[in-house]
């Protein structure tokens, strides 16, 4: 019997509601309008996670600032000894709110930007004046004394502007910048053909990033999330299934990763019925792909199996129909052709049609 590892990080998705409409969002496209967890349920969840060993909590969503009890939850997290991170669009961050968040003990705020310039940024977010509102939020966060990180999701429409994006974030005085190539789940998967950059764009971007990382060492830490479709080996998704991280979604479902509902034949537990400890240690969902024993070939005998853990289960499920398959990104996967088709744009309607902008609805919209 393998020892169950202790978790380090909790992603607390407080709501799927969001005022923005980014087409690369990885939130589920359809979700039942489950009753969101209330303050007491979240507080209990946070405490249980801390007892299990979690050291970091990220408050996310949708847009977490839509929750009026956010300060209460941050306080509860700090009280439980957790490092707190707020992952936000910045919409709703008034001076007053920023001060209250700071007083509640928020350790770090991460604000998203969509581009280096207003017009493109507003178009991607699907909201008027979005870019300016975010720049204002950045200044408000700094005035309130909050430590600042920035996040920019990269895709075909903004990847050519990487040097302007990096320059903007440098001037805004963030200590950390996350440049995240779109990961294709949820709405992003829906919009994959339109969002996918070309290989030329990806190579050019990698060069800009590596130069910036060197230039800004000690001043701004840059995390670059690779566009895994253009790699030959898969990403070490979540650092392994049920190994370091857990997500609790707005309805209280406890997931090994935020997109786990892409795996249709797995049953997930909720905090309303079971403890975090039981779910992490005993549940079928967390144990199903934990470790390496479950792996079929070629992963099973692969020397990289404890490095990339066979890649992403959700991606295997989405693209091949079976979550236990090797992530098709891997060049050893018999499904690699599915990835090659997409990146060389040979699929029927690749590049045509328009982006479907994210919207808050439990109902199926086309």
């Amino acid at each position, binding site marked *: 019997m393998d020892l169950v590892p*202790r978790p*380090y*990080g909790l992603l607390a998705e407080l709501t799927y509601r969001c005022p923005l409409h980014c087409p690369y969002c990885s939130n589920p496209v359809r979700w039942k309008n489950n009753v969101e967890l209330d303050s007491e349920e979240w507080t209990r969840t946070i405490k249980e996670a*801390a*007892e299990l*060993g979690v*050291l*970091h909590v990220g408050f996310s969503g949708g847009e977490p600032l839509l929750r009026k009890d956010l300060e209460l939850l941050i306080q509860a997290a700090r009280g439980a*000894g957790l*490092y707190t*991170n707020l992952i936000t669009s910045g919409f709703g961050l008034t001076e007053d709110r920023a001060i209250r968040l700071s007083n509640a003990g928020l*350790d*770090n705020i991460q604000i998203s930007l969509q581009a280096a310039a207003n017009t493109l940024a507003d178009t991607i977010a699907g909201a008027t004046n979005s870019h300016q509102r975010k720049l204002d939020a950045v200044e408000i966060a700094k005035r309130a*004394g909050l*430590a600042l*990180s920035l996040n920019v999701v990269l895709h075909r429409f903004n990847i050519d502007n990487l040097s302007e994006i990096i320059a903007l974030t440098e001037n805004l005085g963030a*200590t*950390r910048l996350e440049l995240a190539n779109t990961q294709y789940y949820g709405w992003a998967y829906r919009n994959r053909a339109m969002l996918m950059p070309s290989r030329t764009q990806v190579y050019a971007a990698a060069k800009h990033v590596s130069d910036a990382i060197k230039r800004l*060492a*000690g*001043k*701004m*830490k840059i*995390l670059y999330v690779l566009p895994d479709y253009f790699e030959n080996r898969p990403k070490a998704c979540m650092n392994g299934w049920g190994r370091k991280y857990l997500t609790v979604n707005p309805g209280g479902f406890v997931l090994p990763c935020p997109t786990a509902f892409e795996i249709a034949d797995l049953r997930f537990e909720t905090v309303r019925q079971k403890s975090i400890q039981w779910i992490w240690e005993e549940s079928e969902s967390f144990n199903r792909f934990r470790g390496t024993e479950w792996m079929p070939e070629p992963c099973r005998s692969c020397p990289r199996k404890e490095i990339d853990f066979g890649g992403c289960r959700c991606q295997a499920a989405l693209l091949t129909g079976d979550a236990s398959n090797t992530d098709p990104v891997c060049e050893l996967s018999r499904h690699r052709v599915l990835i090659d088709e997409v990146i060389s744009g040979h699929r029927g309607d690749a590049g045509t049609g328009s982006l479907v902008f994210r919207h808050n609805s439990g109902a199926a919209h086309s």
Partner: protein
Amino acid sequence: MQELNLDPDRISKRPSLAKHARLQIDRLTGEPVLLSQEAVFTLNGSAYEVLKRCDGTRSFTQLVEELAERYPSATIALWSDALRYLEKLSQKGLVQWI
């Protein structure tokens, strides 16, 4: 062996943990950790003793003298080890020299 900046101007500055970095005891292991944005750094005992004193109130020189007094068996390498460690963290944006 990395060059150490023993410039008196440098070592009279006060090392301070960055605002986004927090020193903590991991309740599960009882061991000290440094938490920052998305990272967790495990610390050994001497790293913890150095970082505990990086609150921006002591110059590097004062910090080392304090450590030397507290741990009389510490060797002459304490100076260079502590400086090297703080420079490494400074390169990662975790410590500032004010």
